[in-house]
């Protein structure tokens, strides 16, 4: 482990002892994995834009070095999209919760999957709205004997991976924050993916989700088999369905199929780039 590298990520950040997550929160694992992955890839903090969602998970943006932005509930992906379109050199990582992404922000999730900007979304998925004290999120009910769907108040859960696949995402992976090393691996692969990379990370809420605990996950997680072809969308869909039928949770890259991209340049923003603008071509069309 490169401890000097890891230390870099503790600058310009809220000191460890003031991190406001419950002891044992799954998000600690994500934070550790994120630092490991960024260190491994030798990303510089000033090149990074961390866009946090609303909720416990979004706080992570301030718990490590790097530029950060935090706006409205459900908005992280759209802010990230604009920043990435403006400056393709930025490394944009959106860090949000399951409520933020699949409830109030689902409009952004679906369409950012389609747009495929070269950025990462890591969802810390715990099935609850933790910060507001434990209400159901759209991913509530994982593995529970299902009475869901019998009432409008409690619909069946959103399957994040299938939603991503149906939305034309080009990179879909799953991790479990109890396995920091694997989570870090997924983040590395997501950053390296030339397009939108979605990681659904199971990050237990130790206070408000007493059902999907670390032990519960450990009994069910299983790595994606080596012979799985992640470039095959049908295979990815089948894999998710088969794991679900067996009551198991796949960890790893479920789908990866980069689209050809037209290279984009940073938009002009400095005075010298904006001076000497010639309006003649436009005016000529109105004469």
């Amino acid at each position: 482990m490169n401890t000097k590298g890891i230390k870099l990520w503790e600058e310009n950040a809220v000191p460890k002892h003031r991190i406001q997550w419950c002891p044992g929160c799954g998000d600690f694992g994500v934070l550790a994995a994120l630092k490991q992955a960024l260190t491994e890839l030798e990303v510089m903090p000033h090149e990074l834009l961390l866009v946090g969602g609303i909720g416990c998970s979004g706080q992570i943006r301030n718990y490590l070095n790097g530029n950060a932005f935090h706006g409205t509930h459900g908005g992280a992906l759209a802010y990230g999209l604009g920043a990435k379109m403006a400056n393709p050199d930025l490394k944009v990582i959106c860090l949000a919760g399951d409520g933020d992404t699949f409830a109030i922000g689902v409009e952004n999730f679906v369409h950012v999957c389609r747009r495929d900007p070269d950025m990462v979304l890591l969802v810390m998925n715990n099935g609850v709205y933790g910060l507001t004290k434990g209400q159901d999120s759209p991913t509530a009910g994982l593995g529970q004997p299902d009475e869901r769907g019998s009432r409008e108040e409690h619909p069946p859960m959103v399957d994040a991976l299938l939603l991503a696949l149906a939305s034309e995402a080009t990179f879909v992976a799953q991790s479990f924050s109890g396995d920091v090393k694997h989570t870090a691996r997924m983040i590395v692969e997501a950053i390296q993916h030339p397009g939108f990379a979605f990681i659904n990370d199971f990050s237990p809420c130790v206070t408000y989700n007493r059902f999907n605990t670390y032990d519960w996950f450990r009994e069910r997680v299983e790595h994606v088999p080596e012979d799985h072809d992640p470039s095959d969308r049908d295979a990815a869909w089948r894999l998710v369905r088969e794991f679900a039928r067996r009551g198991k949770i796949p960890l790893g890259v479920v789908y990866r199929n980069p689209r050809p991209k037209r290279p984009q340049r940073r938009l002009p923003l400095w005075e010298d780039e904006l001076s000497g603008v010639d309006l003649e071509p436009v005016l000529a069309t109105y004469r």
Partner: protein
Amino acid sequence: MRVNHVKLLVGGVQLRDGVTTVTDILGKIFTRAGLFAVAMEKGYASTIYGAHQFDPMLVTEEPPVSYGDPEVDVLVALDYDSNPDAPEQPNRDTVLRHGGKLRDGGVLVYDSSTGEIPTGALEARGIQVFPIPARRIAQSELKREIVKNVVMTGALFRLLQFDSDEAYLRQLLEERFLRKGREVVDLNLQAARRGRQEVERVLEANGYQLPVRLEPRPGRHRAVYISGNECLGLGAIAGGVRFYAGYPITPASSILEFMEQWLPKYGGRALQGQNERESIRAALGAALAGVRSMVGSSGPGISLKVEEFGVSGATETPVIVVDAQRAGPSTGMPTRPEQGDLNLVIGGGHGDFPRIVLAPGTVEECYTLMLEACELSDKYQCPVFFLTDLNLSEGKKTVLEDVFRRPQVVRHGIVREEDVRAKPYRRFEVTPSGISPRSVPGTPGAIFKASGAEHDEFGFVSIDPRKRAAMVEKRMRKLDTYLQEDWKPPQVFGSVRGNPVVVGWGNTRPVLEEARLFLQRRGVPVALVHFTHVFPLHRRKLEALFADAGPVVVVEQNFSGQFADLLQRELRIATRRVNKYNGVPLYPTEVAEAVLQALQREGAVVRIGGDSQPVPVEVGRNEHEGD
């Protein structure tokens, strides 16, 4: 015979008859001929096809004060079909709706392909009637129905005694159609000639003497025929905006179309959002990355963006928000103008945050004021609202090209790597001006943490009472700085001292100017005070301005008098009000009369076109569009 002053109105069935295709050609050609064309009163409906559409146009020798009153000299009806069994006959629609606006001795030209219509009442008023079977000529003689409008254009040019050598029309046709082949140009010219011949025939048969003539004044100046939305798009490009996002909505969609066409050619990008929120959020993201960013929408879309106004204010991320207002509330009347969104943009959002509201008074100011909006949003790092309305956005006019000066773009307060080596960088540093240094992500040593949650100077979340107070005060102090350094006082026409004062804001200025001139001519000296920097208001300077003023009458296109309320609140002065909210643009004479009425008693509220008896519902009939 009147020379170089004529008001036209072209009407027809939306999409089918190509009303604005005709008026766009007219506007362009008159502009090339050195004349001034103003077509701001757009009449159309929120449907694709089938509704009545009309487009009035004033053509003058010198720049007109406003588009004038609704009365027209020449009425052009493109609608052609008539079904004697139908309760309403479409080819009479334009005539029925607008015949009353024709001045005595004016000219009516209509497509008589399916039969002539009774026009005795109009002829009794000395109106000269020209039935032209344009569609029949196009179909049976020229074998191309599409040229029926060129037949009508040729007829109209003959009626205006304009372009008798076909030079202007030929040039335009060649520009548009030569790549499709010489025969296409010739066919169109032939169509125009047939229109002329038909007019000649009627002239001879009736011995008419035409009342108006347009004479070209070429080479006097360089000018374009352009809309407000196009001008503000140009202003944004000249002002350094390189990211635009919008979601389709009338009447702001044409900004998106303009930006999609032109922004990439200046190195920028235009994004059609998947919803109103994605648009403004993406614009905030691009602004965060340092790029000047703009969004455009209209009332319903602006309502959906409200949450992000606060994000812009709290994270101090600049964004320009164009609101091309239309009649609300809810869906309202998407194709009708109103000044009803002022309260939304000055008050929308929870909590207090700084914002600046600008409202251009003319198509020209859509360009020049947009340059200011670009600088202000960058300098004050807050949302800057830019309020147009349907008529200003979609309306077109001849604009002299001197307007399009290109100032040097100045980037305000962006720190570079070398700056932060000398002095530690705090993104939200508390400063006397309230403006903090800003960095673009990617700058070594200038990491920031921006958040809509309350934060300290570095950007870390904090609910410390002292830090909170300091941060709120810092942000709001930016408005004091703006008022001191950049706020522009209202334009004043005439003398305020002891005289009644008409107050207006935004797009109504030309009409209010003309109304003031009418009143002056009638011996009523009134001043006009017109605002383009609408919010916040500089209390001290305005108190001085209004100190010795007579009665103050605020004229605006909404029901409640939103700007009058603001003025009353800020200056603690009593206002009288003239309001119009029936979806029809303001006209000078009605404004002058309403102002006279308002001057009769304190606290007067005069409602133009309002307070009327209920209009009976006619089931099964299309509703008229209120004109």
